[in-house]
């Protein structure tokens, strides 16, 4: 929690009238503790091979990559070693993180599900730790991920996610992406499961995939 130390300097020691002291220094302390936020707009080329690719022109360091989303019915990380998960810095145990996603699956005849989990980097791969929605274990077919996303066959299906999670010590990583109980950040990975073939997530300029994360504080 925020800790306030009130240091008072009498504005005018010679004054005889009542005075009001504004706590500007303390406002600054609170401002410096304002929760961190991050927004990423993902777009690139709508790929007819049903891959997705995205770019981050805002320069948040996400980079560029493409990954197939024909997962063969298994949960797969959407990102690659080039495109890391979204990272929220300045997070501690007891803080609440908020994640919002807006996107659109296309109308391929297959179905698809979407999952979210905190993750850490190990041997070059992101491994999931704690789910924000339902289970989405990597390389497994079990679990349905985030309940509010279910891409039906042959239908355009919105991806609409707003979730919050209280951060526990097992969510924290350090700047290298390794699990660290005194780390100052969390990594949120996007995972997807398709059933029946390819599914396509729009990442075009007109139909971007938008992901934002915010620390709500305690």
């Amino acid at each position: 929690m925020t800790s306030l130390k009130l240091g008072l300097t009498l504005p005018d020691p010679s004054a005889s009238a009542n005075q009001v002291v504004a706590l500007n220094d303390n406002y600054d302390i609170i401002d410096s503790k304002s929760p961190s936020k991050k927004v990423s707009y993902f777009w690139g080329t709508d790929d007819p091979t049903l891959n997705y690719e995205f770019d981050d022109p805002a320069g948040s360091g996400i980079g560029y990559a493409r990954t197939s989303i024909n997962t063969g019915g298994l949960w797969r990380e959407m990102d690659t070693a080039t495109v890391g998960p979204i990272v929220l810095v300045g997070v501690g145990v007891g803080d609440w993180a908020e994640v919002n996603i807006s996107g659109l699956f296309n109308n391929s005849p297959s179905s698809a599900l979407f999952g979210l989990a905190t993750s850490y980097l190990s041997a070059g791969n992101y491994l999931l730790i704690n789910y924000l929605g339902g289970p989405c274990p990597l390389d497994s077919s079990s679990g349905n991920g985030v309940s509010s996303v279910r891409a039906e066959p042959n239908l355009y299906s919105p991806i609409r996610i707003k979730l919050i999670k209280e951060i526990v010590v097992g969510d924290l990583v350090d700047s290298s992406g390794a699990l660290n109980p005194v780390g100052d950040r969390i990594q949120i990975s996007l995972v997807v499961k398709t059933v029946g073939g390819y599914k396509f997530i729009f990442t075009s300029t007109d139909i971007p995939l938008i992901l934002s994360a915010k620390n709500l504080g305690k």
Partner: protein
Amino acid sequence: MASLTPKFSFRKPDGADAVNVTIDINETLDKIDKLYGGKALVKRTTTDMIVPHTGYSLGSFWSQLPVGTFVGRDDLDLRVKAVSGDWIEVGVSGLWDAQACDGYLDAIVKDANLSFGGMSNPLGGGATVSQGVLAWRGEPGRHSPIGGSVLKQLISSDIDGGGYVNVILIARVNSTSIRRNIWSNANIPFIWFLINHGSNL
């Protein structure tokens, strides 16, 4: 939320008359409230919730979820500390089952019985043509994802005697013969949460 105006008296170095100093700390407290407002979250992972079809000629009345005695009725009640003027946000992540009737969801402030979806007296048997929060509507005959959140600024009657705002989930269907389910299991959890953003949203 909190309010404080401490006053101090200082004596000048030369021992002359005291000077009264009033510290305007309320803006500071408001910032703290905004950063550290209360949150509540329930992840329900057992027993699908049933929305009954009984009620009146056009469908069911609004019912508080979960309905029935097989689970604790209060397990989807959310509460956080709040005062009049605070902005609260209620969000959900869930999935309607595919029964062939429309399903509607809404959130209400329990003490005031006022809806986030815009209707009045939703548990009183009236307003049964309303469809609650439209983002949470279930299409008939189709698994329908439920997502997103709604906001409301609180008034004094929204706050209970203990200084809390209490939010509950309500639902109805538009059928007199078909009930509808909302999934609640380990693989398809129903997540329901409440955030108090304080007075400065």
